[in-house]
């Protein structure tokens, strides 16, 4: 198998362009997110908050439509008054720009992956650099799909953070020239197993980020609730002067001016994390099974508790626990989100620490 170094360099240019695009997108989404400081809590947030107040200790959430004006049909829309149109247009513009550059970057990355595959004459996921690139591409694709469905800009900012870090590490520390593969990787299972692993890892990254956002958001709402409780206490009538009926007078307080106010509602974040997980989890399960089948062909047994296998099993158990927790009273919401985050941490740990630090059968992944 001959490799084409020139085309490999072209591919790397594509990778760098993608990284540049993602960094630009991170900055744009970041500016958009930062400019949301001081904006008014959204309708979804108001509902989410109200529900938490009604059912303390639980995190059951629902989406409920509030009439746009929030006038008289119920009290839940009270802190809504001006709609999100009040947000400064600059932030919105940056949000759009971010979306454009992230799409261009994604295109550049797909180009980079394809040309790398042609240059090497094999599946372009044979070492850590290529694998990292695939994961990031899958995560960006996942984000774009979620964005298309939910229009959540703030997700863009949070998703781009790990993607940019991974891309940077992949493009510098992990980068290797196009090369043919060692005989251990000459197998069609490379195509199947690694493709499934990288796609599912990318989508699980979106799920993990959504769960982190869920945790931030739920902490923020707890603070908001605490302030609300404080405001309606009898001793603080001055603050709550014209809110005798228990409405929230938080307009001026720190919590409402937090940037976190522009995060999607808990229900929306929970749904993003859950949907991403139920897409990725079967693929990940398939990847583990395919890995076992490959191990049966390559190493003489389908499962041998090699560090990589053990860690893959741990991640699988975490995600299984997440799916069960989300359907169990008392574990939904924050706890389930924590499990999802743990699951993703274990996936990342498996990807980097096990391949690079711990010696095992997967240690050939391109660094030594």
């Amino acid at each position, binding site marked *: 198998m001959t490799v084409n170094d020139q085309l490999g360099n072209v591919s790397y240019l594509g990778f760098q362009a993608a990284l540049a695009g993602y960094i630009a997108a991170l900055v744009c989404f970041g500016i958009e997110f930062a400019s949301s400081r001081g904006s008014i809590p959204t309708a979804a947030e108001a509902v989410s908050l109200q529900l938490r107040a009604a059912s303390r200790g639980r995190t059951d959430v*629902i989406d409920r439509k509030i009439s746009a004006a929030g006038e008289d049909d119920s009290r839940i829309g009270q802190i809504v008054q001006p709609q999100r149109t009040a947000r400064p247009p600059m932030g919105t513009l940056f949000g759009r720009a971010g979306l454009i550059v992230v799409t261009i970057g994604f295109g550049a990355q797909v180009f980079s992956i394809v040309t790398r595959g042609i240059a090497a004459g094999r599946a372009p996921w044979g070492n850590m650099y290529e694998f990292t690139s695939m994961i990031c591409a899958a995560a960006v694709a996942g984000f774009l799909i979620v964005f298309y469905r939910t229009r959540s800009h703030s997700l863009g900012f949070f998703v781009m953070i790990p993607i940019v870090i991974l891309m940077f590490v992949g493009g510098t520390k992990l980068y290797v020239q196009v090369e043919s593969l060692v005989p251990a990787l000459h197998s069609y299972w490379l195509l199947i197993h690694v493709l499934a692993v990288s796609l599912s890892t990318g989508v699980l990254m979106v799920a993990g980020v959504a769960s982190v956002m869920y945790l931030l958001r739920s902490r923020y709402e707890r603070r908001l609730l605490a302030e609300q409780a404080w405001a309606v206490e009898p001793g603080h009538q001055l603050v709550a002067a014209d809110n005798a009926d228990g409405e929230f007078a938080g307009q001026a307080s720190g919590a409402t001016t937090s940037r976190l106010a522009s995060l999607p509602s808990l229900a929306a974040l929970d749904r993003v994390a859950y949907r991403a997980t139920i897409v990725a989890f079967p693929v990940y*399960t398939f990847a583990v099974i395919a890995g076992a089948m490959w191990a049966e062909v390559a190493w003489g047994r389908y499962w041998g508790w090699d560090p990589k296998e053990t860690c893959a099993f741990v991640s699988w158990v975490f995600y299984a*626990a997440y799916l069960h927790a989300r359907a169990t009273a008392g574990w939904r919401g924050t706890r389930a989100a924590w499990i999802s985050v743990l699951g993703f941490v274990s996936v990342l740990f498996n990807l980097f620490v096990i391949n690079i630090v711990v010696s095992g059968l997967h240690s050939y992944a391109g660094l030594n």
Partner: protein
Amino acid sequence: MVTRDATHLSGGLPADGGDSGSAVEPQFRQGRLGGAVAFLRNTWRQLTSMRTALVLLFLLALASLPGALLPQWSLNTSKTAQYILDHGSWGLLLNRLGFFEVFGSPWYAAIYLLLFTSLVGCLLPRTWDFVGQIRMKPVNTPRNLARLPHHASVRSVGSPDEVADRITTGLRGWRLEHRVESSGALTISAEKGFLREVGNLVFHFSLLGLLVAIAVGKLFGFEGSLIVNAGDGSSSGFCSVSPVVYDNFRPGLLVDGTDLRPFCVDIDSFKASYTAAGQASSFVSAIRYQAGAQLNTDTWSSTNLEVNDPLRIQGQRLYLLGHGYSPVFTVTYPGGKTQTGTAPFQPQDANFTSQGTVKFTDPPGYVGEQVRAHQLAIVGLFAPSALIHGGIMTSTFPAAETPGVAIQVYRGDLGMETGKAQSIFDIDTDQVANGKLLKLNRANLAPGESMKLDDGTKITFTGYKEWVSLQTSYDPAQGWALVFAVSLLVGLMSSLIIKRRRVWFRIGIADSGARTAEPAAEPARPEGDSRVSGVARTVANEDHVVVEVGGLARTDQAGYGDEFSKLVALIGASEPR
């Protein structure tokens, strides 16, 4: 999103337990039954509750971690032993607690056995419930359909029976039940998505099956590995007839090695190819083998053994796992007698600088005590592409282009009869320390070159052979493991993708006087039916019916809304005239 997830509501709606596994535990009253029975029953309930299962899942993940982070006896014996040595009493304590054999330790077994017991305790009642649900007819139409998360009210043309027929034909694949209420209204209850629970049960039973398949493999399977020089005549093969032919034999718990299914293998050649940069590009070993009836007729089949491509013989698998070099030395003793010896050397780096020892334990021409006084050991390095730099030999390329050895010769008692186990790659240094083994000359040799010892013995480096490490694996249950893995995946996917949902239709004669009666009735209705209420404002005729529709998705999945709109469309709402 217009709709609400039924299972997200903490109460009120007639949602079932869904995925929550066990319902809230009812208070158990002491007294009527004995305390012991109550205790057992409560323990069982605790164990089979979802909360316990979640905790056990966490414990399982946590307990697996040392298996990934600490060296394990089953994976790397020498590394584990070194780790324990390096960590003193901590190492010994961890070893005693089983941290270097996590997946065989009692505490790990305790966790997964409890988990699987909990699983069985949860699965059996669920299976029973499910059988009951399948046999049950779709439930009665709730009195107030407007309270369901999906709701619509539509006017339509035709008699109630016609409308009911229209709906029924549209509900293909749904389980249906027609009823007539006391008010005279026709109702249709329908539900769909039972495969979700089927998938759920299949997934969990597959886990059990997988555990059994793994256990059977551990009981009845075995692995045997050995190193063989390729293309070395009669010594370059083996017959798998008993465990002793293997350098290392790891039997299953119920395997005593007496009834291996025999097969024989001859390694004719081994060829490794490398790129110019020294990266391996292929390993191929040409072999001949015979098994079954061939053993009696002495016929052989030929094949190539490659990495990622094992030979499968009668349920057993033969793998090519590694390779290396075996330097060959010829010793010419003072009496003129010669002896040739070789031994596999252990690769130390990617360029196959290899280390090892060739032992001559039976020098010709000596008897009695003299034999042990004249044993020889050639200890040293072999480099396929030798480069001597600063007196140290290393290899610069993995292929044997300019082979060389750097050797140190010992003579004396190698200590083979002391009963102590010896590494094949090294000598027993205690024998050197206590003076029974003498350290003699050292030399760097190219092929054909020789060195002389003080007593006139000549040692010639005559060449090298390539060795391959092979492994025979046998696992009678691995096919079953695959079957269960596939059913696990299929079950998982159907339990995540399929939605369990219900829909009810109540068909009543339109109240001719009512023009805009119902839109105001439910202020908190989802906006999805606003277009429907527009329809409702049309003038009602005598042959109009009012169809109320309610829908309930009984699973986590949102996204029932789209399907519900299609279900509503089945009614065929009357066009505004």
